[in-house]
């Protein structure tokens, strides 16, 4: 079963506008959530995270929102820039079978159009 889901495989946004990437999870034991950005032929790079005790975390142009009751998190990028074009993965962290592990979504390919 897919415990972390990103239902949009791709998203296209105009430069300067807001990009909103969404992620849903099913396991209520997850207590920390992360977003990673991945360019082709490179490893994923950590972008921003949020603890389950918060509902918002902001870092420059990037803001992550967490709605625990809906088991939903989102990443807002504003304003979007061409360099933001990449694949974005959300991940959830929790105690799984006795160890702290990350579970990743399938990824969303974001394309920023000039």
């Amino acid at each position: 079963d897919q415990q972390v889901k990103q239902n949009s495989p791709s998203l296209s946004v105009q430069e300067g506008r807001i990009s909103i990437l969404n992620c849903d999870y099913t396991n209520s034991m997850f207590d920390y959530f992360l977003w990673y950005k991945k360019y082709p032929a490179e490893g994923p790079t950590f972008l921003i995270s949020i603890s389950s005790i918060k509902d918002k975390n902001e870092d420059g142009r990037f803001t992550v929102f967490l709605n625990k009751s809906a088991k939903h998190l989102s990443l807002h990028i504003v304003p979007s820039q061409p360099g933001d074009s990449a694949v974005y993965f959300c991940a959830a962290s929790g105690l799984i079978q006795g160890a702290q592990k990350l579970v990743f979504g399938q990824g969303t390919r974001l394309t920023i159009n000039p």
Partner: protein
Amino acid sequence: DAGITQSPRHKVTETGTPVTLRCHQTENHRYMYWYRQDPGHGLRLIHYSYGVKDTDKGEVSDGYSVSRSKTEDFLLTLESATSSQTSVYFCAIRQGGEQYFGPGTRLTVT
């Protein structure tokens, strides 16, 4: 930059041959992980290590083994490669609540 390197970066091998991928870190992190990335699946955990000689299975461990004889190196071995193991493999370390990834190894099994 978490000081993680992976070797080789690219490899093509034939079905049935053994393959070993290496992950090397320079910052003495205790936890290390091996993931594979496939279209439509995101990153899936193969094995992880919580110390020298301490390893455990992840979500997709069948057909893979690992070893960690020293802190800085975490090896992933495919004992007999199959076409279903064609993938991009990423190593990661844990620092705080986050994981940081190496550049990846693209493995093709023909």
